């Protein structure tokens, strides 16, 4: 072995080490966070009940984050996702509680309407060649108006207990079923993105639309399907939201949009750094809720939780950039 090859292989090993460190840094940070809280509040934090509670409570955010992740991977933003979530939850409430539809029909209707909204987003973005930020912002605001009109600005409670049971009451290993829906979705999306042609096409389109087009990928079709998938998944998140609370209100769900983007971006720093990925997003959601839960148990003020949430995002993305030598990142 020559001196040159030794240097080359040691540089290669170093690069690999740095890459692996970056991939698993968030996982490590999560473990450290758990260890800190387990040490600080051992009797209450480090119990299965705490973890089952954390896992069970974040399914809506997980599904919404996974929803926006699909168009993000293709290079589009879906700012209407949280409004689709609220609209879909309200549609379930109005049709089930006020119009007396069976809950199954209400759910199917809400998901179908979600897919239709995605198609509207796609039609405007692709036909008129307008940036996805603008169209989805407009469609989202329009949906907010529709939701307020449909609900007459009221919160509607009394959604069928059948849905509530399927979301939070029924459990597997002590964890509400909602968690497994989010987990299953993340695993399916990971498999699709890694091992199917459709998933690889989505990644290619996100990396470079022109290159993808020159390679024979039908870019517009991929983008359209990603927007439809996003709205459909956001509608599913809305159904879960309705099942979680047993009610629907016209405003509060919209506050989930920024945490969903935070989770997606934080997720892009882990497991497959520089790429939006479902498992990283799942990990991010639970990393963030672990911090919030531990801080609450320690009696931290509300503002500390926001400091943690925002700070974790900025620090994680910045550290990830340091590891990769501060090269500009193009997420996708």
């Amino acid at each position, binding site marked *: 072995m020559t001196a040159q090859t030794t240097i080359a292989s040691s540089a290669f090993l170093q690069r690999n080490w740095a890459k692996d460190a970056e991939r698993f840094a968030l996982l490590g940070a999560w473990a450290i966070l758990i260890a800190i809280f387990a040490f600080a509040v051992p009797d209450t934090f480090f119990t299965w009940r705490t973890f089952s509670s954390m896992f069970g409570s974040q399914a809506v955010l997980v599904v919404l984050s996974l929803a926006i992740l699909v168009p993000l991977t293709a290079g589009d933003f879906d700012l209407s996702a949280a409004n689709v979530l609220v609209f879909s939850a309200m549609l379930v409430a109005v049709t089930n509680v006020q119009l007396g539809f069976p809950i199954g029909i209400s759910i199917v209707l809400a998901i179908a309407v979600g897919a239709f909204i995605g198609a509207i987003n796609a039609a405007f973005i692709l036909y008129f060649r307008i940036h996805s930020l603008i169209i989805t912002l407009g469609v989202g605001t329009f949906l907010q108006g529709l939701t307020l009109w449909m609900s007459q600005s009221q919160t509607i*409670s009394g959604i069928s207990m059948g849905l509530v049971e399927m979301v939070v*009451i029924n459990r597997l290993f002590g964890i509400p079923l909602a968690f497994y829906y989010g987990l299953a979705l993340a695993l399916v999306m990971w498999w699709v993105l890694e091992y199917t042609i459709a998933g690889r096409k989505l990644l290619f389109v996100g990396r470079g639309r022109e290159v993808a087009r020159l390679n024979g990928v039908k870019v517009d079709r991929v983008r359209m399907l990603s927007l439809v998938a996003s709205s459909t998944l956001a509608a599913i998140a809305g159904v879960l939201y309705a099942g979680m*609370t*047993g*009610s629907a209100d*016209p405003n509060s769900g919209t506050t989930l949009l920024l945490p969903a983007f935070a989770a997606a971006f934080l997720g892009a720093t882990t497991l497959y750094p520089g790429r939006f990925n479902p498992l990283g997003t799942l990990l991010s959601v639970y990393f963030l809720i672990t911090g919030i*839960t531990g801080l609450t148990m320690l009696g931290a003020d509300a503002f500390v939780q926001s400091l943690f949430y925002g700070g974790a995002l900025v620090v994680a993305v910045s550290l990830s950039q340091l590891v990769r030598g501060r090269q500009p990142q193009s997420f996708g």
Partner: protein
Amino acid sequence: MTFRNSLWLIPMILPGAVHADAMADAQALIATHTEIPVFVPPGEPFDARSCMADKSVFSIPVSMTIPFAVALEDGMARAAAEVGFEYTVWETQGGMDSYIQGVDHAVTQGYDLIDLAGGINPVWIGPQLLQAKESGAVITTTHLYDETQEQADFVDASARVPFSSVGEILAAWAYVETEGAPNVLIIGSDDVLPTGPFVESIQDQLSTYCPECEQQYLNVPLAEWGTRIQSGVQSALLANPDINYILPIYDSMSQFVTPALRIAGVEVPIASFNGTPFVLDMVREGTVKMDIGESLGWAGYAAVDAQMRQLCGLEVPEDLGIPLLIFDSANVETAGIPANFDDGYGDAHIAGYRALWMLD
């Protein structure tokens, strides 16, 4: 040692007697708020129609997308229509720009009184209100301050809400329902103006009834109810499994408390305040144990009474004087099925205010 100075020894000598007194006090307080209210005139009668003949009122609600604000404005508009003066509601969806626009519009149109209804803190638009005041408009607030709070300097009168009294009722309820052993989680939003005195009154009253009982406060900013109440309640329940009552001080918080209870797999009763219809429905369904309601129709009449007294140069009452009614499984169906903002309280206020304003 005088008799008066030795009174502090009583709880040490007779703890059972003190407990019994506290229980009797709490039960008595609850009992006064379970009957359909009677009308108590908030001041001297006056000839409202002739006094208000050439007056006009411009009301800016916090947001007409909030059902509470809509119901409050409906009540105020109905009262104004009874008297017969010009009453305009600024149909806003909320937001500082819209409030400023509303004040400007009221000034240019020459309204006599500008009212901020349902939670707009006048400090947010202080410069604009000062200008309006300089141009001759009277500034009032409706349903914002607690009776213990000072109003902003440039506000002429405020129709206050007895949040502190509500706090005392909630504390009494938790004390009685837990048979004198409350371990309470209070949920509030410090960024909402009356939260401070509201929460303090719950805490103080609970400490008075039972100094050794545990209480915990969870502050969740208004904008984060949808994302933080659930996780906060779950954490609090995990950290303290002995919590036996939850008091979200604004009842719309309840919808985020119930999933937390379901996920944590525990049944802890909830009691709250506002009488929002969907929460009254939750009382009927058994998800929420009790909700203290305030008739917003009654509040609307009381607010207009305060505005008219200010414009007519009469003394304005200290608070809105609206009755607080406890809704639980025994009487919640009187609020309607589904519930609404106005049923269940009787209509004593309509005849009462008509007589007070000399309309009959």
